[in-house]
């Protein structure tokens, strides 16, 4: 009912429009966001551990900080999974799978590790997630014929990340 009233009003007043803009498939894919998200998961686990081992702070402050770290870890583990899913679903083609038959298994592993990273506060799991995403990034750039290099991220947690050697 409201919609039909607004439709009638629109014919008279011509409301402005808000665009839920959808891109033309543009071919812009990059695993970088997934890598940053995986690094963030490690960082959040480190911050959670530091907080837990720090001299006792006031209870409410502790819970507030811990809740924030956990929320960011959740969000970035999910973001990591999503970014990989998009590249896998939209960019990876049959010819890539022929050349890199391990891709399906690797993506599945990233999905599992992403979920495990959400469920736990285990640093090893977070490191495994980054390692798997880095491996995915190497394959991704290889499909484009672009060599890669491994460099330590210049910020905490300072783990190795795969970059295209441009």
């Amino acid at each position, binding site marked *: 009912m409201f*919609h039909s009233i*607004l439709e009638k009003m629109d014919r008279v007043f011509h409301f402005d*429009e808000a665009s*839920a803009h959808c891109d033309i498939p543009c071919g812009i894919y990059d695993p970088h966001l997934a890598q940053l998200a995986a690094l963030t998961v490690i960082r959040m686990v480190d911050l959670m551990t530091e907080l837990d081992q720090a001299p006792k702070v006031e209870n409410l402050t502790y819970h507030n900080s811990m809740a924030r770290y956990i929320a960011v870890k959740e969000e970035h583990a999910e973001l990591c999974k999503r970014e990989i899913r998009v590249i896998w679903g939209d960019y990876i083609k049959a010819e890539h799978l022929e050349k890199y038959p391990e891709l399906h298994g690797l993506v599945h592993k990233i999905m599992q590790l992403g979920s495990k990273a959400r469920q736990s506060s285990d640093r090893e799991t977070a490191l495994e997630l980054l390692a798997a995403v880095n491996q995915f990034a190497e394959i991704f750039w290889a499909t484009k014929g672009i060599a890669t290099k491994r460099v330590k991220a210049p910020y905490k947690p300072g783990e190795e990340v795969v970059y295209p050697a441009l």
Partner: protein
Amino acid sequence: MFKILKVRGHSLQPDVRPGDFVVVACTPLLRRSLRPGDLVVFQRKPYGVMIKRVHRVDNDQGELFVLGTDEDSLDSRSFGALRYRDLIGKVIWHVRGGV
């Protein structure tokens, strides 16, 4: 204070469809109450007035990360975070009925 806008584009489907209407509160105070999941309307050059869903809020930096639900959505993944000054307002009422 309030605006009625008509939605076009598909990037928020199936939640928000082209032809839906949204009522937007333009009070600056609402910026501090934004949370992930909120629909916001903002100005982004060169695309004009856009509507997306808040993914992350950084009150310290005064930034928002916004996303669409469609895989091909043009959003913060391509144009980066929004500054608060880009915001027009928060959607407080979404009237469905578009196609």
